[in-house]
């Protein structure tokens, strides 16, 4: 299969890139590992309520005969110059491209604390995704902890589906939260969003200490502005922020800066003909992703005037991103939650005490098997980066677990 433009990730950035590039007549493939487009933020499902704007975007995508959607597909390896090996549930294929646009998004940072592996404990974004996918939460008592606006969004989704949100523990200080709120009038739409999400159980300078229970979650121990408090509940959702998914960009040789794919004004990466847009270039929400995606799409087909036209809009949302990152930077207390017997690697059951003695990710992995399990360090690698400052090594193919059958397609060098 050969296309002019291959877009990896069909969230806001990828959808916008495809729509921006489409009028040029270029053949476009838009690939995502989820079964539907929309990314994490516009994830569809039986209990999802997507904004009208998303339905409109999806209609426009479907109407473009030059855009091919490849959902439930994952990038496995670089098969050759400008060629990626891709796998879906049924088959594998090599896709050749002229231009590549990486819109690989971000994933949730999960920080370990005592009890975080108990059934009933999820990520804040993870809970949202589960609820959209049909998880019943009506009548359940829920505590949300972590940092950033995602806590409020997650609470709103749970509440709309009948859960009782008892407490929202934000680790940032009131001063930081108030400082962020004071800037919101610069982005009126965000201000309205925030007002709509406001919750009486919201507390700043607060964080989870432990999830309590034997076989499943029964209560949460919280530090609420310095006071320890136990709250009986059925669910705990924790979101400590987002980590850019830079692995594919890194594997293709794109320069990484501040844990994000570095791009120029045209959203071009350091590698020729590879662009990047959205959360993988630094998290900042769907508005930033949409405009960056559109710039990348225009630039990739050579419509520089259209791309340049969007620069002011991008600047506006990058300002929002900076305010967000500055206000909700993780403080020390949430980095010290794990105790010596807290599991850091869930796949291989490796506790904090088994890791601390090692000087870095690779020696720790070799000695303890940390990161060698099914998730290949996606969770614990990010946690140890925050906890110990360990840098995970450059990703190697297969970039995701893949059928050996798929890898058999990797052929001779050119």
């Amino acid at each position, binding site marked *: 299969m050969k296309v002019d433009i291959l877009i990896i990730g069909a969230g806001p950035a990828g959808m916008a890139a495809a729509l921006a590039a489409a009028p040029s007549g270029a053949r476009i493939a838009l690939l995502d590992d989820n079964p539907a487009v929309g990314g994490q933020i516009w994830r569809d499902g039986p209990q999802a309520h997507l904004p009208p704007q998303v339905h409109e975007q999806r209609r426009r995508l479907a109407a473009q005969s030059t855009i091919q959607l490849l959902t439930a597909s994952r990038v496995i*390896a*670089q*098969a*050759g110059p400008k060629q990626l*090996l891709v796998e879906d549930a049924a088959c594998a294929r090599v896709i050749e491209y002229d231009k590549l646009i990486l819109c690989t998004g971000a994933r949730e940072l999960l920080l370990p604390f005592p009890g975080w592996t108990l059934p009933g404990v999820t990520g804040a974004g993870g809970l949202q995704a589960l609820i959209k996918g049909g998880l019943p939460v009506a009548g359940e008592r829920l505590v949300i902890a972590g940092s950033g606006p995602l806590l409020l969004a997650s609470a709103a989704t749970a509440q709309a589906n009948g859960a009782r949100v008892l407490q929202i523990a934000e680790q940032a200080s009131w001063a930081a939260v108030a400082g962020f709120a004071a800037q919101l009038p610069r982005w009126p739409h965000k201000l309205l969003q925030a007002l709509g999400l406001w919750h009486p159980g919201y507390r700043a300078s607060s964080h989870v200490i432990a999830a309590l229970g034997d076989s499943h979650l029964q209560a949460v121990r919280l530090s609420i502005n310095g006071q320890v408090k136990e709250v009986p509940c059925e669910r705990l959702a924790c979101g400590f922020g987002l980590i850019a998914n830079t692995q594919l960009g890194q594997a293709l040789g794109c320069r990484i800066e501040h844990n994000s794919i570095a791009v120029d004004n045209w959203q071009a990466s350091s590698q020729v003909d590879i662009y990047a847009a959205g959360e993988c270039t630094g998290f900042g929400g769907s508005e930033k992703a949409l405009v960056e995606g559109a710039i990348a799409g225009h630039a990739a087909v050579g419509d520089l005037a259209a791309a340049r036209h969007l620069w002011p809009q991008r600047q506006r949302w990058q300002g929002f991103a900076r305010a967000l990152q500055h206000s909700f930077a993780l403080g020390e207390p949430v980095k010290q939650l794990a105790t010596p017997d807290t599991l850091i690697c869930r796949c291989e059951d490796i506790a904090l005490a088994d890791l601390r003695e090692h*000087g*870095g990710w*690779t*020696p720790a992995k*070799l*000695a303890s098997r940390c990161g*060698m399990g*099914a998730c*290949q360090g996606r969770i614990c690698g990010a946690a140890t980066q925050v906890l110990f400052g360990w840098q995970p090594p450059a990703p*190697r*193919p*297969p970039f995701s*677990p*893949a*059928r*050996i*059958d798929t*890898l*058999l*397609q*990797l*052929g*001779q*060098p050119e």
Partner: protein
Amino acid sequence: MSQSADIIIIGAGIIGAACAHELARRGLRVLVLDAGRRAATAAGMGHLIVLDDNPAELALSQYSLQRWRDWGRDMPADCAYRQNGTLWLAANAEEMAVAEAKYQVLREQGLDCQLLGAAALQAAEPELSQTLHGALKVGGDGILYAPNAARWLLQHAQIELRMARVVEIDHRRVRLDDGAWLSAEVLILANGVYARELCPELPLQAKKGHLLITDRYPGRVNHTLVELGYVTSAHNASGPSVAANIQPRPTGQLLIGASRQFDSEAPEVEPWMLGKMLRRAVDYMPGLAGLNAIRAWTGLRAASPDGLPLLGEHPQRPGLWLAVGHEGLGVTTAPGSADLLVAQLFGETAPLAPDAYLPQRFLGVAAHA
């Protein structure tokens, strides 16, 4: 300058660790310096295997396998030692004849081995291709997890492990990258492929290998499965080559090898080589195609021209002892290599004739005699 230890060993891989273990057992103070670079012990398969390309290789691997079986009783669980045996797979009648010849050689040495016909092979390993003609089973072979075995060998009160990179060797002392000098009566160079940096005259060539590991599929494979073509397709070739090598790990994962490249020392996984290696493995075990791979990586084997290690004192640099050039057999032959080296150091009769492994065969005679 005061001595930093009785003996300084450069390299805390399986060879350096085995030497340190044996020296410490004899009461010497050993300082082991490791630069923390990617090296063969961490990358390899941990296959403990008797090889018989030549009598010296057979003697060293057979002796070492016995030592591993002894150590295996004391090793902690995280070393993942198992005596699961190797099956040498014959794809055709010609290879079956090779299996029979190999059987004779190994039997003469008193090794536990057995020829399996096609039906017996299917019964032993039902996942294998039904087109195979049979196999030679070598019962004393095993597997282990070498990084932890090396750590276990280094756990001794007389051994100090220090993370430090040696940048120069000068007589009986070494300079670290921070400028500090350390000295000892004896230096042992056991840092595999990196030995060339400190000792450019060593005839070592890097041979890159790829490995891949699957998700957990317990019970699918029992023995380590190696194609008999391994000897011809991987060992003796000069260009890039692959050979089927499938090893069941105690976790239920399958470790799949093997490849050899002479022209590439880059650490990257090369997709074309990965594909080539896996196609070969799938020829032998078709069901592999339906399993999930979770990780691939590479490593460098430090090979000498004749495939045997260099074990002994450097003929022109008194006080510098060599334990390098093990190619893909370092984990297997670590115990024997250590015993051979230490016996020479102490002027004792070695458990094996040391001549075939002496550095003199490449470096010439002693200049200081």
